[in-house]
């Protein structure tokens, strides 16, 4: 069982919550980790901002670094007007970061390794862009699909390509985060399985030889920590880039 690298991604029902028709809605391990991430983040931010010291404590400066980091990202990609969406981007970034980091704890469940989660987040961003862009700019929002300086006879083709490119955004947005987390965790599990295989097959010599995959796991875990952060950042920055289109479509 420990040798199955996919087993870690299985959803278990913890207890049922409600029943709609014949479909039972259960509280799953995925939901538990999401809840843990939300509670953890809320407690962290509440505790960090409770003091409001001029000279920040360690906790407060951690929260300030997170704020500054996301604020700089939003301002640099979506401009000063993009700060309207700061709470949205900050929430997404911290949520994804927390889920990615929780997933690195041994035996923990990685919520972001399920495409349904990342797709839901990406679609939220997609529809936010669409609805906000239409509300703010009306039909001028569709100038997004009409690049300037294109000859009229090429326009139908170009617009079709631009629309498809726009529609493909939530796919690449969600697949990137999901596949990175999935691949990383499978790699970790596979190398961990090597240790058990070696130990089981060769006895004492095998356990000593297991030091090699173990060293690889340590290195991989460091890499995965980087990937966990980087993918949360990439997810947030792509959100900003897409929101930028909703704010300034006619560019």
């Amino acid at each position: 069982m420990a040798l199955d690298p996919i087993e870690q991604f299985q959803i278990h029902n913890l207890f049922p919550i409600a029943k709609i028709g014949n479909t039972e809605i259960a509280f799953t391990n995925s939901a538990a980790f999401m809840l843990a991430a939300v509670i953890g983040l809320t407690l962290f931010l509440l505790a960090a901002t409770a003091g409001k010291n001029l000279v920040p404590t360690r906790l407060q400066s951690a929260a300030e670094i997170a704020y500054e980091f996301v604020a700089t990202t939003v301002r640099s990609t979506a401009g000063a007007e993009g700060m309207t969406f700061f709470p949205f981007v900050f929430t997404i970034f911290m949520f994804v970061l927390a889920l990615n980091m929780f997933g690195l704890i041994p035996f923990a469940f990685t919520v972001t390794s399920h495409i349904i989660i990342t797709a839901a987040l990406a679609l939220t961003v997609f529809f936010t862009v669409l609805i906000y862009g239409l509300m703010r700019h009306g039909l001028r929002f569709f100038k997004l699909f009409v690049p300037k300086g294109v000859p009229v006879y090429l326009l139908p083709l170009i617009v079709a390509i631009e629309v498809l490119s726009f529609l493909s955004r939530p796919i690449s947005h969600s697949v990137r985060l999901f596949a990175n987390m999935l691949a990383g965790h499978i790699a970790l599990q596979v190398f961990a399985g090597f240790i058990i295989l070696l130990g089981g097959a060769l006895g004492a010599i095998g356990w000593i030889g297991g030091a090699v995959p173990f060293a690889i796991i340590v290195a991989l875990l460091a890499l995965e920590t980087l990937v966990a952060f980087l993918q949360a950042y990439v997810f947030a920055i792509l959100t900003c880039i897409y929101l930028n289109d909703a704010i300034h479509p006619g560019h």
Partner: protein
Amino acid sequence: MSGDARGQGDRKEPPDDEAVLSARLQRLGERLASASRPSENGSGPRQTADRSAFARGFRLSSELVAGVAVGAFIGWLIDRWLGLSPWGLVVFLLLGFAAGILNVMRAAGIVRERDLND
């Protein structure tokens, strides 16, 4: 902090040359400008986002696949609804491929987001 300390250290020794001082001031100005630039410049963070080559390669491939997948899906839907099989799939697969290439070029920075056109 280190900048302050260096500034005080510099002040102790007499400014032997006016030109040296102005050159130093200019350098400081440049450093300050480059430090404050990221808040206005849009192109900075995109490079840092793709720091590792693996992440970059992955990003580009997923962009291409996403374009083709959306094209294929829309073509398939059109075939189903309008009974045009196989023309919807043929046309939209090609369009999706073009959109995927466009995505990749945008992600790689060969074509800037949109403002290069005007």
